[in-house]
């Protein structure tokens, strides 16, 4: 439970996040900064992106992102710049790489597999679908009709 409270506290300490003095004057650039910030993790927080975190390091990272953007980096370059310094850990969305293949591929593969199994299950007695009733069904029909 202590952990839980810790999480709540971290999540919940008055979130001041992006401060007025950080905002870039170019709205298009600022919008891109916000999007990138939402994909970067505040390294001292729990499951919080730097955009909504009020930790000091998050602020530093926000300023860094804006600095790179102003310097003319594209979104990819900003992300790889930050990853090069802080490691893979800062990415809230793990990259589509071979080492993450299981993570990303699991959903679609499971769905296809499940569909296959379901299809086999549904088709298991194709003969019984010719419209005639099975013995049980006939019996039940007789019961229902009071025969």
């Amino acid at each position, binding site marked *: 439970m202590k952990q839980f409270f810790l999480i709540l506290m971290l999540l919940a300490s008055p979130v001041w996040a992006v401060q007025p003095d950080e905002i870039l004057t170019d709205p298009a650039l600022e919008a891109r900064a916000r999007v990138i910030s939402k994909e970067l993790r505040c390294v001292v927080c729990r499951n919080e992106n730097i955009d909504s975190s009020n930790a000091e390091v998050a602020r530093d990272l926000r300023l860094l992102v804006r600095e790179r953007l102003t310097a003319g980096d594209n979104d990819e370059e900003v992300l790889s710049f930050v990853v090069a310094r802080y490691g893979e850990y800062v990415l809230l969305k793990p990259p589509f790489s071979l080492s993450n293949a299981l993570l990303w591929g699991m959903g679609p593969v499971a769905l296809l597999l499940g569909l296959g199994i379901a*299809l086999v299950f549904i088709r298991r007695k194709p003969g019984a679908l010719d419209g005639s009733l099975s013995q049980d069904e006939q019996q039940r029909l007789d019961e229902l009709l009071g025969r």
Partner: protein
Amino acid sequence: MFIELGHFAIVLAFALSLVQAVVPLIGAQKNWSGWMQLASTTAVLQFLLVAFSFAAITWAFVTSDFSVLLVAENSHSLKPMLYKVSGVWGNHEGSMLLWVLILAFYGALVAWFGGNLPAPLKARVLAVQSMISAAFIGFLIFTSNPFLRLANPPLDGNDLNPMLQDPGLAFHPPFLYLGYVGLSMSFSFAIAALIEGRVDAAWARWVRPWTLLAWVTLTIGIGLGSWWAYYELGWGGWWFWDPVENASFMPWLVAAALLHSTIVVEKRETLKSWTVLLAILAFSFSLIGTFIVRSGVITSVHAFANDPERGVFILAILTVAIGGALTLFAVRASKLQSNSVFSFVSRESGLVFNNLLLVVATAVVFFGTIWPLVAEITTGRKLSVGAPFFELAFTPFMVLLVIFLPIGSILSWKRAQLGKSVKTLRSAMILAAVVGIFIWSRDTGGRMLAPVGLALATWLIAGVIVDLTSRARLGKIPLAQTLRRLRNLPRSDWGKAVAHAGLGLTIFGISAVTAWEIEDIRVVNIGDRFAVGGYEFQFNSVNRMPGKNYMADLGHVTAFKNDQIVAELYPEKRLYQVQRMPTTEAAIDTTLTRDLYVVLGDRQEDGAWAMRTYIKPFTVWMWIGVMVMSFGGLLSMTDRRYRVASTARRKLPDAVPAE
């Protein structure tokens, strides 16, 4: 004294739970009715004993008895009464006691209202229920005892975390636990059915109301949690894909799958072993959720290693319960013969597809939640999986689900004609497409979220309306007859319609607020006026005000639209004195079309204040949808056939043409 009696009562309850876990099982096997009947008596006794312990602890909180360690650590004499009571479950030990209380409560409900269950089934269900009960009371007594006393009581307590001193969060845990623990009923029924080697329509009718109850309370619990996050965390986020949230979301998804598959068992006596497996899975995810939250293992492997006692205990419960259940399933599932077949296009297939999507979506959430842990243990890589992953990996399955939902829900049983259903739904399809295209053409941002989300929401709600009106033959027969037909629809059909429409409303709220939210961050001088998204905000004042156990800076902002006052907003910053913890209280003005959301930030050196202002369109529909969904579940639960249900196995179905 009271506390010691409570302690004694919980130990007695533990002993009783051990008896109840064994004796009725033997009775059911040997067909000794006395041994079977014992279960009902002990279940009620167990509930009374646990309730007494719970009352004892609650009393200690209410009277601020700081000689009790738990009270000293988590309460304070100045705390408002509501939070003194909710403080009981605002900590680890107390929340486990609540868990056990609800478990015992469900056991007692079976004893009281399970009169129409066949004696051996009832005995076995209660025995399995009591095994879970024994495990968790044992956990409570041996690792998390709430009844410990202090030799030297402090003068006053440590207070409850200020974040938790909130009405939304006061009721969040009880509802969540009603859901988590409610799934233990479906689990117990599944295990009992495996032992008996028999699942039939009657079994499904007994399981369904319990699953519905668990799902409804989980829905409310999750809704309360996200609502709390929305107004308390200060920037209007309502879902974070945090492991703790995922822990409650996974059982919800599986429970949703389960309550759909029990329909198939009930109507068509097929998908039996799958349904039993889902019931096992649903409760397994409740246990996994409890493990994740209680052990802290996901937060950090190290936190777990430093204080492993509780984590290991729950892990042991988890292993025995899930492992044992799955082993039993592997051995006995072949006994559960399904004797009806259905074609690829049929209601059954629709529900299979529903189950598949919900289960795969659950698996995605599960993998995402444990992936950092798995990666660290296996390869030593430290990585994060957060909201952007889940949004991308989870959402497509929900989109698929919603696309097929209206079609699947009107297909006829056994063998259906796809063309006919599509034709019935043509008007809903056209309406959804028109809504989507209209929004797409007006949304200059070019993002697909709003058009797709709103088209899906329209599709769901229109689909429900088309289904109801076509079944009532609106326009084809006199209106009075149509109304009578509507009135005579079984309540579970109304439940289905209402719950599906609720999902549509929630999707509408989520899409609208995500796509169209406007945010403004700035420094404002007192007396200044600023414009955000068609509204003007006048910052009037900030005053220091004392609260009962905190100090507040209370701001006053007036919102205008076209120079008319539309709202007076009072955003607050609080400092709770005992724990020296600051919190923000956003000021929110809610209407059906938008929320105005104002947060007071830090005071700047020149006396101005930082301020965040949001216009959040249609947010409230998210929670209206949640309430409507829950209401739909309740409607289904009170369907006549679950009450008269099961007077005897294999009775003829009700005369009402239940679909």
